[in-house]
């Protein structure tokens, strides 16, 4: 078991010098390649929720893996490298200039857009929420993704984003308010 007594807190996950990164408690050291294979799918999903586009998500995760590889000597000493990569994805998303000018643009109506008759208003409402999320400020979107997709409590979100819990609540509140103001209201039953 890892000795966490000497762990120091950096932005995000705790960092422990001299701790062996193991897989499944087997005591075997995790290689960079194995970490990539085991975390890529989860990180892609998180990146998809943050960026709103598959291609941007792939670019984001690939950028993070490239940076992680350069810092692998340090990352493989962490007790939870996956959490560290998740923080890297978040920080990369929040600071990614390329997203501003490289956003994916729909060039045609999605073929599977549901109509109210076929699938129902609920699906249409989800699609509307997805589009509105993409227009939120990144900090607000990140908070909503971490809170409702990653199921993280506000204090953990604050630690990951490097801000106060009150700021997290404020961003969440503003994001939800924007969604509420622009989403079609539900039919009263």
């Amino acid at each position: 078991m890892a000795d966490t007594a000497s762990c120091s807190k950096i932005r995000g996950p705790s960092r422990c010098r001299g701790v062996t990164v193991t897989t499944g408690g087997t005591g075997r050291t995790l290689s960079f390649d194995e970490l990539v294979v085991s975390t890529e799918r989860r990180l892609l999903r998180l990146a998809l929720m943050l960026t709103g586009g598959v291609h941007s998500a792939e670019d984001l995760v690939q950028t993070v893996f490239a940076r992680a590889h350069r810092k692998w000597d340090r990352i493989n000493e962490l007790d939870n490298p996956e959490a560290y990569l998740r923080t890297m994805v978040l920080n990369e998303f929040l600071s990614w200039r390329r997203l501003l000018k490289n956003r994916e643009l729909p060039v045609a109506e999605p073929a599977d857009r549901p109509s109210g008759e076929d699938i129902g208003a609920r699906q249409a409402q989800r699609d509307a929420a997805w589009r509105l999320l993409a227009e939120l400020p990144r900090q607000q979107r990140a908070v909503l993704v971490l809170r409702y997709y990653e199921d993280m409590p506000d204090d953990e979100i604050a630690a990951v984003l490097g801000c106060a819990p009150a700021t997290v609540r404020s961003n969440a509140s503003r994001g939800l308010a924007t969604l509420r103001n622009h989403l079609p209201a539900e039919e009263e039953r």
Partner: protein
Amino acid sequence: MARLTDEDLERLLRETFADKEDLLDSLPQATKPRRPIAPILLAAATVLVVLGGILYGVNRGAEVEPTPPVASSSTTDDADIWAAAIVAITQRFDQPASLQSLYVSKRAPGADDANQEAARTFSAAERNRISAQVVKDAGIQVGWLGTGTMTAQCIRTLARVSVGEVVDKGDHKEVRTSIAYNCGYQYTVTYRIEKRDDSWTVTGIIGVPEGVVPAGCPVSGKTPASPQAGC
């Protein structure tokens, strides 16, 4: 009509995120990345093509043909050609079925990483097409590495394939291809690739392959506890 409460929004967001997870399994057909064409990138790409041609010509030695090589312009064809080269080089393994995953990068095999910073990576469309072809033809999953991220560390469970630019030689194409496997062993070859029956097929090799043929050192699905003797 009732305004959505925070609880309604929370439920809706959770449903929305769960619903959109499926996007990763099927890339949308109706989207395209908007890539601003910066003059500096165009200039860098031009320099790379010219340098690639010069390096290739130097490596060919006495076999250099009088016409300078030029990069192919067809993205789809290029992706199929790269896929054919990748499949061909993985077939050098004695037990290709044990090779489950590849990292693929676009770089000139043989050049050091420091010179690859300016090289462009595969586009998303190219990645998708290459992945589909390699999975179909060789049953091997493909991962991607960008430029400047070549790992110098020992890779035992995965192999790394690098492909250079597709060089148009008139009646056929040529692609410099290398595979790195099992702790730094590397095999580099230039494939001659022709279009036959509407599909790109490796029809031979150009020049003399370099490195160690992967035969006898298959990349297994397991990570050995110690370096494999003799590989």
